[in-house]
């Protein structure tokens, strides 16, 4: 059983890793066909991951309702929203789900008038918290934080039209900050992260890194 649970996955990871790394350097048509087939399979497998997320969310809220934890009533709205959307989605404007997707159905109405406004608003709340946090916690206590503060102020002014009214140099300085020190730092971070990603990929292929197996090894 250990062979099936531990060895086979490690062999699969090794074979796929080496095969796809070598494939990049082989221009033969068979190699291109392999890439197309394997990428199509990977795409299909990735699609099933949606159901993992869906099951987890339904299970979490079902547990809250079953155990009647504090605020369990709100979990009913999760089920209500999901079930009503699924019903209208599968009804598909009367054509049912085994046909092609119809346009301007109740399903689309729910998307445009529930999901879009609520989703957009939930993330826009951060604007208020950023303003509040900037006032309460953004302090120039050290030289480094002062430099950070000055760079932030120059970029914030330079990136809006009003910066040009204050001084013609502010937009130019903001552009320079983005194109030189910011670029250099981000490139350094990108190079470091990329080298780390390659190292991790090699560790996965050679079976040194096994956390993707989900523990117990």
């Amino acid at each position: 059983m250990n062979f099936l649970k531990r060895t086979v996955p490690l062999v699969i990871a090794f074979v796929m890793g080496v095969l796809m790394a070598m494939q990049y350097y082989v221009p033969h048509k068979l190699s291109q066909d392999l890439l197309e087939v394997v990428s199509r399979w990977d795409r299909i497998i990735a699609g099933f991951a949606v159901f993992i997320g869906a099951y987890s969310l339904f299970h979490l809220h079902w547990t809250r309702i079953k155990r009647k934890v504090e605020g369990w009533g709100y979990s009913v709205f999760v089920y209500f929203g999901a079930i009503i959307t699924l019903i209208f989605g599968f009804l598909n404007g009367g054509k049912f789900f085994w046909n092609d997707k119809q346009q301007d159905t109740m399903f689309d109405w729910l998307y445009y008038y529930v999901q879009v406004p609520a989703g957009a608003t939930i993330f826009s709340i951060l604007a208020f918290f950023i303003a509040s946090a900037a006032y309460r916690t953004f302090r120039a206590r050290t030289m480094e934080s002062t430099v950070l503060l000055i760079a932030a102020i120059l970029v914030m002014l330079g990136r809006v039209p009003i910066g040009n009214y204050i001084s013609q140099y502010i937009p130019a300085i903001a552009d320079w900050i983005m194109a030189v020190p910011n670029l250099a730092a981000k490139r350094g971070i990108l190079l470091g992260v990329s080298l780390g990603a390659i190292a991790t990929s090699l560790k996965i292929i050679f079976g040194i890194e096994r956390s993707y197996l989900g523990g117990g090894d």
Partner: protein
Amino acid sequence: MRKDSNFFILVGSIGLFVCINIFLMASGKLPFSSDGFGIILGAGLTLAVYSFLYKDNPAFKIAENLYVGVSLGYTIIITWFNFLKPDLYDPLIVPMFSKAAEKAPQYALIFPSLLGIFMLLRFSRKLSWLSRWTFAFVVGLGAGVSIPRVISAFILEQIKPSLHPVFSGGETILSSINTLLIMLGVISVLIYFIFSVEHKGAIGKVSKIGIWFLMISFGASFGYTVMGRLSLLIGRIQFLLKDWLGILQ
């Protein structure tokens, strides 16, 4: 007493919202149609979410949970119509069970479908080990595919412009200084992130320069983050003033 006042504030706000909408529909600013009712629902959800800024309240929690449910339902339906139906149901299942099908079933799709089902078995106590095969396939494939592409796109293509000649004709003095500064910044930031060597002496001085570059970069990122979050707020207020209340044209 405090709970009572919160209740009255909530009920009063809902009442005010209803009155405004009755006025908007009666005056013709909002159409008496599915779009009009949709805008009312959207505005209501927007205001319910913003009510959190005053205090956490039932209206916010209902809006939040409703959004989670609807977006989950939308994800499942879109996954069916855009992925499961054209990629699996139509080419594999329909030809297998329908005599009127024009094309033969694509049996090769059984293999990735099985791997996908194995992945879902991670919730089963007895068969969860099968999901390891799928994760190994996906992770191994991702690792193998990434290595040559990341080396080419992120390392070589990023090092090339950093090694741009300082003087090759046509540059201004400022652009040459900028090229040198960029190279200095990249090297000093990379040295800062080498934590296996103690940051003292020459290494310490260079990593200190890296810290300055990082601070300027984080300041720029903060400025852009403020800009980004504000844009989301501006968009929502535009919706409320333009689409709902009709104040903006």
